[in-house]
């Protein structure tokens, strides 16, 4: 395609976590693939365009790039990355050319467009490949931006404008491995890759389905193989994090992937559901192809907790299924959610011990809070009300952080208990695991967790400061006081978000438009 865009320069930036708060889960930093898929899609459409990628998670610094020379800057981030990199964003705004447009994408732009628009011109809500191409074409041709799908921007009086929303069908958009070229080659332990998008389930806490939709959309297995070999050749790592929401949704697809990649002898960790354990043949087939670890959203062993998350699974078989994975020498990482009103300290200690007994190798104890204003912006169900969510600090996406005001205990206390849960888990797990390979995985995990937990003492000090007015001596939340303060602080913002203008929704036929 030949357009004026061929002469344009674009910088794509993936923001990183705060340097003080290293990735306690040793996992979240692997969610870095989105920016590469966006950049690859742009390259495929505009092959002559000059495009640079700054991967902050690999230690690259946007300040080292010639910011003044770019026509567009695209930024992807999670919530905590956004809050942790405000100085970087201020630098970009200060140094960029006056004509340069800044476009945010990824989870934080999708959930809090009003925040990213303080530093940028546009936010893309959800999958970004199509919208970014549409936006660039519209801006370059001088056409209006009202037809650009999934776009959000500021309109009259500062009100948000949300263009029509669309989900896309095919995702056979291969990552260009050359975009991963990095001075860190040889030191990169993982690369993230997407083999499918979408998940048919609807867990209440899951924001991914709001970005990627509930329609399971696998890639062509030949495309997957090409991506894997290309990336391994570029960065020198043969271990991949499969960033799909629910990789094992379609068994035929999984067998086809296994057949396609078995001879590569790479290793994979993939996100999926616990029911995979019921199909031992598939588990073994995938293991023979290198899938030796899964991230499974176990969330809790408490039936009441699972019910509250709309987690449709057979609770009574959780332990049995986890032990089945251990029998196959499959390592399991899993998020365990704390902070619900009915979870007391005994329940948390029990959960931590249960993780060891169920032979989870890598639990990530977390407190999930929604991002605020999701109901007002997107009509979403929120299990945590806006006034109980801590705004402006690390929140829902940063594993093991407490980002809300619980009702029965101050947030700093909950945060301390989360740190204690790790101690309880490791002590018990090292008693249970005897094989050196499983003990070393635990040792590795403990080494990853320690620096993050040490740094979280800073977060505890922050929580202790902000919680002071809102709790009784007995640790009960003074909800009326909190609510009133919230209204005083954010009432004007709420009113502005309430005036959001929503342009007509896409029709059903368009929602099946292929990307390719």
């Amino acid at each position, binding site marked *: 395609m030949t357009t004026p865009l061929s002469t344009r320069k674009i910088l794509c930036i993936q923001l990183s976590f705060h340097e003080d708060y290293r990735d306690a889960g040793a996992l979240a930093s692997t969610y870095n693939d989105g920016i590469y898929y966006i950049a690859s899609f742009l390259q495929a459409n505009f092959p002559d365009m000059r495009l640079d990628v700054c991967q902050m998670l690999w230690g690259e610094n946007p300040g080292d790039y010639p910011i003044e020379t770019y026509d567009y800057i695209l930024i992807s981030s999670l919530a905590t990355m956004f809050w942790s990199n405000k100085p970087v964003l201020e630098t970009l705004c200060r140094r960029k050319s006056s004509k340069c447009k800044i476009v945010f994408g990824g989870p934080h732009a999708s959930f809090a467009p009003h925040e990213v628009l303080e530093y940028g011109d546009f936010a893309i809500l959800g999958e970004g490949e199509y919208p970014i191409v549409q936006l660039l074409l519209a801006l370059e041709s001088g056409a209006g931006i009202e037809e650009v799908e999934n776009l959000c921007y500021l309109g009259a009086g500062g009100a948000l404008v949300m263009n029509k929303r669309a989900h896309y069908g095919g995702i056979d958009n291969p990552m260009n491995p050359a975009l991963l070229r990095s001075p860190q080659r040889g030191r990169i*332990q993982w690369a993230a890759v997407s083999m499918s998008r979408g998940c048919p389930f609807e867990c209440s806490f899951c924001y991914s389905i709001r970005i990627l939709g509930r329609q399971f959309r696998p890639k062509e297995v030949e495309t997957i193989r090409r991506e894997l070999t290309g990336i391994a050749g570029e960065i020198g*790592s043969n*271990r991949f994090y499969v960033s799909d929401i629910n990789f094992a949704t379609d068994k035929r697809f999984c067998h086809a992937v296994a057949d396609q990649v078995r001879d590569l002898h790479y*290793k994979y960790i993939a996100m999926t559901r616990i029911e995979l354990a019921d199909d031992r043949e598939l588990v073994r087939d995938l293991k023979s192809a290198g899938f030796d670890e899964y991230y499974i959203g176990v969330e809790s062993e408490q039936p009441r907790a699972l019910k509250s998350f709309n987690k449709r699974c057979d609770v009574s078989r959780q332990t049995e299924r986890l032990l089945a994975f251990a029998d196959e020498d499959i390592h399991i990482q899993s998020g365990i959610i704390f902070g619900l009103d009915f979870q007391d300290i005994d329940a948390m200690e029990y959960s931590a011990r249960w993780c060891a007994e169920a032979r989870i190798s890598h639990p990530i104890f977390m407190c999930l809070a929604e991002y605020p204003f999701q109901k007002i912006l997107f009509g979403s169900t929120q299990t945590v009300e806006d006034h109980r969510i801590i705004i402006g600090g690390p929140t829902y996406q940063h594993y093991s952080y407490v980002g809300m005001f619980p009702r029965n205990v101050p947030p700093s206390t909950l945060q301390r208990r989360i740190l204690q849960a790790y101690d309880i888990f490791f002590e018990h797990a090292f008693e249970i695991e005897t094989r*050196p390979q499983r003990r*070393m995985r635990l*040792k*590795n995990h403990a*080494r990853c967790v320690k620096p993050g937990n040490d740094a979280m003492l800073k977060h505890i000090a922050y929580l202790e400061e902000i919680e002071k007015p809102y709790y009784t001596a007995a640790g009960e939340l003074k909800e009326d006081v909190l609510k009133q303060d919230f209204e005083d602080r954010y009432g004007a913002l709420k009113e502005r978000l309430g005036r959001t203008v929503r342009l007509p929704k896409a029709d059903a036929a368009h929602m099946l438009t292929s990307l390719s």
Partner: protein
Amino acid sequence: MAGGALDSEVRLSQAGIFDKVKQHLGEYLERDVSGLTLETPLTMIVPGIDSLQLFEAMLYLEDCFQIKIGDNVLDRVKNVGDLVQLLENSLALKSGTI
């Protein structure tokens, strides 16, 4: 679990450390590694070994030799000979001979 006999490990010669490294890597990786030489790149001690397996094998050697070899060991150690040298230095430091 190997590595209980610290005193004898400390007194090992470089050849002795090399033999122990082969023994412990073989135990950990559950593969025949008798063909390793000092020149074998760490990434090729067994076919298809990935960075995580390799790092965790280093953690196992830490336990076996009862030393600490650091998070960035794979940046500094490229082949088995480098690893043996690192272990020799660490054991000497531990025993106070350097």
